[in-house]
């Protein structure tokens, strides 16, 4: 990778909980962007004062400047959080890198009155997710429209989402996924065996937020009906009724172990990297960081058969759409298949989902955004010609091309 020769620019990263990363995909991304890009550009990251108490706060972190806001970065407060961050950044930044569409209502004004460049990542298709109430869905649907129309470049993390934005807006979204090579193989120690006695035998593993759209109930039911290997799930069970109900129902089952959230990266990777199988039930949200991390660790994967997961794993994993299919896979899986999946999925992760690669893609986007004026159209220019004229020249079929 050749070094690029852009001048030093001021970049503001907006919409994450903050760094040091301890929350989710966007935060890990922000951290790696800082590590890899802060030598070339001046980066400022906006962090949530609610998650970083006064004692933990720093002025600088790995070369990036940190600014704290007294608001939550997620939920309803994300709207003022993003808005204030964007507004503050207008005073010094050249490029705004916005993660999430909560502050998108400001974008038309920014385009109209300033010459700041905007790169926005629209996350998964947020407005569709069941966890939001109707007002939130309306706002997010509208905000997503603004985000795509008024940004210079918009990023989706999955091809399936790129298809959707092309269908809805006719514009070309860029695909940049997540890296996963921050996860490590942790060898099993004496202490580990004491804490987790199942760790010396094959077991299936899953780590995720406990939400209905992650199909945890389906997975728990399936594993309670098989006894090929135990299932270990790490997640925030006590955060919702859905979680507490499932915990009450399944925690005593001999084949199932449920754990509360593990924030220590080492401890989590200990359980994760020594598993024999990874189950991924996510049905939404584009490219899930937990999935690419599992791929990077070389775990064989059985994933929910939604288009995003298939694209992420390049169709090389096993897929299920209901309980029967999952049970079938669990019962019929054999060693050769497991080994084949491990190698193939790890190869994909090493090729695509490494942070050096991902941050380099961002670097290229930064260079590109400094020179573009308008957004790329997903449809060819022939789509804009008048129908009557095309009819006369015998080329009317150009109007009705089906590209997707």
């Amino acid at each position, binding site marked *: 990778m050749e070094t690029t020769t852009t001048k030093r620019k001021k970049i503001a990263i907006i919409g994450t909980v903050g760094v040091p990363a301890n929350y989710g995909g966007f935060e890990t991304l922000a951290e790696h962007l800082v590590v890899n890009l802060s030598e070339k550009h001046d980066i400022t990251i906006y962090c949530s004062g609610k998650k970083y108490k006064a004692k933990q706060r720093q002025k600088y972190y790995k070369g990036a400047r940190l600014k704290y806001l007294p608001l939550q970065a997620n939920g309803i407060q994300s709207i003022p959080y993003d808005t204030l961050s964007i507004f503050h950044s207008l005073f010094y930044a050249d490029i705004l890198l916005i993660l999430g569409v909560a502050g998108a209502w400001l974008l038309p004004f920014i385009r109209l009155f300033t010459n700041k460049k905007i790169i926005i990542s629209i996350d998964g298709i947020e407005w569709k997710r069941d966890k939001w109430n109707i007002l939130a869905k309306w706002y997010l649907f509208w905000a997503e429209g603004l985000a795509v129309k008024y940004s210079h470049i918009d990023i989706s993390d999955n091809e399936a989402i790129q298809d959707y934005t092309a269908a809805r807006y006719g514009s070309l979204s860029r695909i940049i996924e997540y890296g996963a090579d921050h996860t490590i193989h942790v060898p099993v120690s004496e202490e580990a065996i004491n804490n987790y006695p199942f760790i010396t035998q094959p077991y299936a593993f899953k780590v995720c937020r406990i939400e209905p759209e992650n199909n945890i109930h389906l997975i728990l039911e399936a594993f309670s009906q098989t006894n090929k290997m135990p299932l270990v799930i790490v997640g925030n069970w006590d955060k919702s009724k859905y979680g507490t109900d499932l915990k009450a129902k399944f925690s005593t089952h001999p084949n199932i172990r449920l754990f509360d959230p593990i924030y220590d990266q080492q401890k989590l990777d200990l359980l994760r990297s020594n598993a024999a199988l990874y189950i991924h039930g996510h*049905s939404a949200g584009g490219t899930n960081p937990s999935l690419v991390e599992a791929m990077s660790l070389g775990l064989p994967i059985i994933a929910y058969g939604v288009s*995003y997961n298939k694209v992420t794993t390049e169709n090389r994993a096993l897929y299920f*759409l209901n309980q029967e299919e999952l049970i079938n896979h669990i019962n019929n899986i054999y060693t050769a298949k497991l080994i084949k999946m491990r190698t193939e999925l790890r190869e994909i992760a090493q090729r695509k989902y490494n942070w050096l690669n991902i941050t380099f893609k961002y670097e290229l986007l930064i260079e590109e955004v400094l020179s573009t004026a308008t957004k790329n159209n997903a449809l060819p220019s022939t789509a804009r010609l008048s129908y009557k004229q095309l009819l006369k020249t015998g080329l009317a079929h150009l109007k009705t091309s089906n590209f997707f």
Partner: protein
Amino acid sequence: MFLLLIMGILDDKYDIRASLKLSIQLILSHFVFSHGIRIESLYGIFGINELPFYAQYVLTIIVITGVVNAFNLMDGLDGLAGGLAILSFLIMAVVAFLSKQFYLALILVTYVGSLVGFLLFNLSNERKIFMGDAGSLSIGFLLITSCIKLFQATSTAPHLPALKIGIISVLIVPVFDALRVFRKRIKAGKSPFEADKTHLHHLFLSIGIKHKLTAVIILSIVATITCAGYIVFAFTGITISISFMLILFYSVTSLLNFHNKINQWRNHIKKIETEN
């Protein structure tokens, strides 16, 4: 008033050609006009007052014919046209009473009574009856002619200008819904009379709200617009109140359209997500 019966019965018995129906309506409007019920002035809306004679004639004919048909378009759900008629007639009856048009008030109240009886059957399951074109056209006709008459009557009782708000508010939903739908069809290149599912009650149905609930919601929208109109009128003039009521109406329809768009995209995405 007696002319109503003739037209209605004729229409439902034989399926009359649209142009013939239209000509009958125009003739009836002419009769109404020649009996003295006419739109004489705009009473200060948009600053216009007394109208010249030809304008009065043309405007009266167009408005009567328009509202009669607009009301007919509202008859798309059980209980909707009936409920709307009851609500409108009640408001009009109050206005009539307060402007000393007792004969008209009596007629309106009688109609309310018969409509209640009608609704009893219309909303039931086993003994269902419909009002048909006869019903909706004649009710629309009664509605608009009473409106015009009351406009004339309230202008002679200048201490009750607020009554005009009531009259207008009952007309806003049918008329502007029809106009909105026509505009949308014309913009899409189709004939404005070509049937599609974009009227107000269709929008509610397509988000998944059941029939009876839709009727109730639409009636409450009319009631809300009326109240809002009165409140705004207490602080400002007639033009602003009318504009405000229109804005309210259009916000409701925009929101419904928006929600429909969300549902369409959600289905589209579901298809993309689960295809191979």
